């Protein structure tokens, strides 16, 4: 769903099976503008991926989501740009696109 939303605002989307697969790709080809990931990713968790990505490029926006309330504090501690609490809908995703894609582009 996140992917089709990003397509709807004309952005390229790269889906990955797990955190490690994403990180291996980022190491080789560079990090994208925005990363949207579950906190509970296989092989490399969302917060772990966030730490590695921010080490490469602090400007990359990292948005993590979860259905477990206790994980919000972990995400905050890890330094995420946004936390999405499940279930979320289209309006929340549009809000994030507005903040991190539209406004950032018009500000730069």
């Amino acid at each position, binding site marked *: 769903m996140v992917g089709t939303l990003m397509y709807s605002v004309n952005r390229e989307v790269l889906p990955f099976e797990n955190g490690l697969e994403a990180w291996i790709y980022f190491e080789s080809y560079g990090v994208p503008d925005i990363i949207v990931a579950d906190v509970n990713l296989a092989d490399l968790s969302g917060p772990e991926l966030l730490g590695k990505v921010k080490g490469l490029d602090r400007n990359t926006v990292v948005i993590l989501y979860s259905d477990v*309330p206790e994980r919000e504090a972990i995400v905050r501690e890890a330094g*995420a740009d946004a936390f999405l*609490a499940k279930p979320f809908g289209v309006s929340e995703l549009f809000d994030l696109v507005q903040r991190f894609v539209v406004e950032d582009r018009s500000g730069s």
Partner: protein
Amino acid sequence: MIRLGAEPSKMREIELDDVFLSRLQLLIIMSKAYLNGYPLGRHRIKSILENAKHIKMEAVGLDEDLELFGEDESTENGLGFDSAFYQRVKLLAVMAEAIAKGHALEQHKKEALEKNLDAVCESITFNKQVSDIQFLKVA
């Protein structure tokens, strides 16, 4: 850090109903964007086709379930919509798919699409709180 989504006490896994409604919302937004003359980019076309495919598939299944059990409303799937709603949703998916495939809609078809969109939006409004369809402002 920005926080969006459910309140901590209401957090839960995203279910099929949530995904169906979100895909439908995206389809509505993109159809409205088309009617308002916004151009379709390569990625947006891909998004419309993917959403239309899922919506058509899922709406067909839900609609058949209603007919099979002779139910007026799809209470079993939790959404509470009636058969006419799913027929309208299927029609919307077919029309959106036609738009994405580059078939220009004649004026009377555009009017039909607009009427259909209004009816679908009205059904969602009845079943969801108005605050849940704020996304329509984006279109």
